[in-house]
């Protein structure tokens, strides 16, 4: 006699053999095969989803990828820009009646000189004044205490000459002309020159004698003066000369002891204390600082080459008071604080690569609140801690090497690479996606200048004008951007600024569509399978109960099933889902609660027909428990039909659940196929604009339901074999 375990093993082997034979029949049919393969593909993608896609798909993509700049002007100038200078200059006081004047150096025909460009008509320009030879530097500055409003002064230097002109813009902003103020030739070559932009606020220093004042030109535009500095080189060495700007009368000339090419910086406008303001010249390893009277303040030589010096803009007004005496100096990889009174330097920070640019905020409260340095491919935000030492408080990768940083306000900087023409706007150095728009001009550009006054303009009936405008020269074109930027949806692209790969682009909410899509596979598959199987189990139990027992109770249950079936389920789903809350488990629960009648009806027929067969009657007579009758006689006869109905049910469950998702009733933090389509609910037109965001979920849904229908047709072959096939 066989033992119990052997019977069990034989039983299982027999059943497995049966299943294998049925699978072979199933596999023969084209439908079954296709459905099975599609289903396997879905399951594989769902299992691989954590590997294919990292992180939360709703975290969005970096803003620099989808924020684009708004270009207001890109005009070719009608003169050739002085390429070695490649800069524009303008002052804040330029904004008049909707027109900015900008100034740049160039040549037209045989005329070298300074040209004026108006922003609203940037293609045309006019030559303000000619210089003797190419311009080596120029600045526009607004004179103080002037009664006439439409005035700018332009300072220019060529190889041997200095020029100061007075620029008059007409009140309507339509024409501009320059009147000469002063012009000298120097003895030697001018290496670099600049003007201290503001006139002294509290009266003239004593060395400005009446004689000097009398020698001022007859243009009665500015009773006070400012100071012009030039580093002049002749065969005896390099000298720093100071001139009174409005007649270019040389006030003093001192020899410099520099070891490299010079840069001039000026600080302090108030002339209150004897030692402020000062002019600083750096070159090589040396730094010299002079007072405007010509007294040497300090003269230091360091062990390293001095790079850039960055002075916060508001320090100009504080007379080098304590707290407002420090500038930031970069040299190689290191950043130092330079005390401007005595020239001592304090080391703050060493970066991993050469510091290419320093950007500081205005510093109206002492130590600047925002300080950014760019080094290699990273920027570092530095701040002073409570203990007084300066440390890094934020850093992030830069999309390109940055060699120029301009400060706007509130911690916003414009980072640019003037050689490659790339720019990016940093809005908050401490957040995860710190950037806003970016632009790539793919040509070398001049330093961008920013106009604080909003320059209002309209593009496509949208008015921009709440932010500053940036103007820069690129080749011979003047380009102006609004700072505001525009979020756009990206198509499938493999080149984004942050280096992300977006095989399916972004949707309206700027999420990575590919990540959303792949991450939707697990939840949708889980919901489909769980809902379908739970429904089948409930239906099985109820169907067997109804079919086996006849009489009042079972007909009551049948009517109940019919009435649940006849309530239009989708509205009821929506009501219950919105009441019970948007979670997937609730949805599975609701679907099972309301979806069982359909399968039950199919099963009742089978149960009733099996019940009429003799072996059931004989089992009943032999007093076998009802439960084991059901288990042993009914279930095996319904086996394939159950699988068939399960397949159809799972497809139906996914369809119903995705209808909720598109109506927005599922929690939005779970990625699902219907959720990807929910943003199009009121606005199907946008589907044609973003097809890459909508076609994947539609195709996935259809294929998934299709796979189950094909599988069920394959199982159909097994469940209802017809002689000679289905023909």
């Amino acid at each position, binding site marked *: 006699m066989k033992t119990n375990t052997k019977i069990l093993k034989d039983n299982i082997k027999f059943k497995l053999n049966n299943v294998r034979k049925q699978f072979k029949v199933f596999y023969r049919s084209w439908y079954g095969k296709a459905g099975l393969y599609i289903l396997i593909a879905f399951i594989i993608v769902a299992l691989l989803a954590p590997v294919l896609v990292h992180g939360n798909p709703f975290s969005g993509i970096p803003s620099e990828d989808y924020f684009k700049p708004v270009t207001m002007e890109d005009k070719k100038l009608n003169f050739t820009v002085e390429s070695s200078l490649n800069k524009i200059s303008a002052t804040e006081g330029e904004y008049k009646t909707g027109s900015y004047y900008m100034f740049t150096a160039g040549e037209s025909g045989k005329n070298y000189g300074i040209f004026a460009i108006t922003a609203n008509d940037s293609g045309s320009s006019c030559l303000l004044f000619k210089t003797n030879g190419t311009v080596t530097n120029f600045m526009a500055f607004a004179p103080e205490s002037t009664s006439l409003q439409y005035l700018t002064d332009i300072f220019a230097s060529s190889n041997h000459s200095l020029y100061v002109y007075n620029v008059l813009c007409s009140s309507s902003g339509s024409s501009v002309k320059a009147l000469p103020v002063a012009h000298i030739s120097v003895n030697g070559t001018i290496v670099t020159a600049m003007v201290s932009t503001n006139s002294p606020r509290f009266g003239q220093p004593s060395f400005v004698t009446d004689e000097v004042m009398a020698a001022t030109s007859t243009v009665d535009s500015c009773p006070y003066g400012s100071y012009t500095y030039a580093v002049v080189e002749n065969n005896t060495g390099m000298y720093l000369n100071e001139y009174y700007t409005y007649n270019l009368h040389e006030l003093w000339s001192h020899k410099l002891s520099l070891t490299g090419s010079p840069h001039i910086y000026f600080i302090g406008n108030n002339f209150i204390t004897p030692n402020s303001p000062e002019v600083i010249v750096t070159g090589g390893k040396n730094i010299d600082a002079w007072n405007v009277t010509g007294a040497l303040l300090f003269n230091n030589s360091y062990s390293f080459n001095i790079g850039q010096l960055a002075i916060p803009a508001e320090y100009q007004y504080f007379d080098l008071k304590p707290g407002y005496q420090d500038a930031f100096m970069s040299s190689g990889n290191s950043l130092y604080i330079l005390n401007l009174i005595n020239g001592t330097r304090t080391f703050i920070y060493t970066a991993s690569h050469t510091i290419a640019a320093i950007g500081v905020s205005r510093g109206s409260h002492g130590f600047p609140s925002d300080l950014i340095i760019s080094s290699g491919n990273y920027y570092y935000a530095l701040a002073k801690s409570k203990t007084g030492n300066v440390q890094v408080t934020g850093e992030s990768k830069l999309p390109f090497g940055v060699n120029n940083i301009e400060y706007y306000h509130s911690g916003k900087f414009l980072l640019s690479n003037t050689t490659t023409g790339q720019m990016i706007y940093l809005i908050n150095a401490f957040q995860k996606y710190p950037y806003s728009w970016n632009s790539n001009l793919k040509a070398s550009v001049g330093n961008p200048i920013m106009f604080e006054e909003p320059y209002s303009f309209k593009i496509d009936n949208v008015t921009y004008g709440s932010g500053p405008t940036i103007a820069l020269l690129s080749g011979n074109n003047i380009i102006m951007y609004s700072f505001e930027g525009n979020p756009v949806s990206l198509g499938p692209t493999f080149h984004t600024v942050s280096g992300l790969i977006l095989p399916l682009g972004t949707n309206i909410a700027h999420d990575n569509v590919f990540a959303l899509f792949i991450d939707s596979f697990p939840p949708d598959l889980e919901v489909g399978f769980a809902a379908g199987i739970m429904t089948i189990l409930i239906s099985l139990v109820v169907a067997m109960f109804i079919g086996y027992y006849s009489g009042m109770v079972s007909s009551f249950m049948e009517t109940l099933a019919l009435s649940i079936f*006849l309530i239009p389920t989708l509205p009821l789903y929506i009501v219950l889902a919105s009441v019970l809350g948007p979670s997937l488990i609730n949805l599975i629960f609701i679907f099972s609660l309301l979806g069982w009648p359909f399968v039950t009806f199919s099963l009742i027929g089978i149960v009733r027909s099996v019940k009429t067969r003799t072996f059931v009657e004989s089992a009943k007579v032999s007093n076998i428990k009802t439960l084991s009758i059901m288990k042993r006689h009914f279930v095996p006869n319904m086996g394939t039909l159950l699988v068939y109905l399960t397949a159809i049910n799972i497809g139906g469950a996914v369809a119903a659940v995705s209808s909720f998702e598109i109506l927005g009733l599922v929690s939005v933090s779970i990625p699902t196929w219907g959720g990807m389509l929910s943003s199009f609910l009121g606005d199907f037109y946008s589907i044609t604009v973003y097809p890459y965001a909508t076609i994947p979920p539609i195709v996935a849904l259809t294929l998934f339901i299709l796979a189950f229908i094909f599988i069920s047709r394959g199982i159909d072959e097994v469940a209802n074999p017809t002689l000679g096939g289905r023909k």
Partner: protein
Amino acid sequence: MNVYLISRKILQAVFLALFVVVILYVLLRLMPGNPAELYIRNLKHPTKAAINSVYKMYGINPNNKFALSSFIVYLKQMLTFHFGYNPAELSQSIYSMIATALPYTLIIFGVASIGSFAFGIPLGIVTAFIRGKRSEGPTLVTATILNSIPFFVMAIIVYIVFAVYYPIFPLAASHYRLGPFLKSPSFSGFLVLIHYFTMPILTLLIIEIMGHLITMRSIMVSVLGEDFIQTAKAKGVSQSSIMFHHAARNAMVPESTRMALEFALLMSGAVITGIIFEIPGMGVLLYENILIENYPVIEACLFILALVVIVAYSSIDFIHAWLDPRVRV
């Protein structure tokens, strides 16, 4: 058909309606809060007395949601169709809201169901006609694919094809133009109706016609395997006569059973295409009121929709009895 059959059917329909009422009552009371909350939320001075009177007006006992007294009130409301007033806008009676919205959904539901079997069944017969030929495979596959697309996906596809790429139909339904038709039917109003309703009806039609095609075909194929078809062929009856007179008449019986089961699905489809295409029918009514949790309106809407489906389902039984004289009860 005799009186006994009709009365039995009516009794069954009444029982179904009663069951639906009870189920809706239970399911909707299972939720947190109660229907009067919307009204109470909008009260300016929620004093105890005011709140109590609101509860009394709604017939709700806030302490015991399933209380018999509130059930009786609810039952009375549902069965006499006096649903009360819209808590969000007290001048509107719920009955009038449903009365203005229901015809649109009924149009979609009715045209879709009649059209689907008016077109689907002949197509199914014809598909059975071409069994064994090469064109059968692709036809069946296309039909299966189109049948398995969910309603809203098909709605999106129809919208893109017919309203965006080949703009025949409008991008959004205009309530203003739709309104006057039902009050004063006219031919031009009818044209406007066609203009706006074609897209939702089309989405339902495509899916349902394919469903009818597939099931009709499979039933036909099994009927064609029966003996009497063999006899008819031997007798020399023409092929088309066999198809339409002999096989189809017999195949219609199980097909009508399937049709009855499809009505619930069709009604959900009509509701959801109504929501997607913004037709001012029950779909939009239901959706908007669900979003603001306006339970009296929701209960009434669901009840009316269920009633429509019960009526359709019961009427199919009559058709079934007419088609198959063997069916008695």
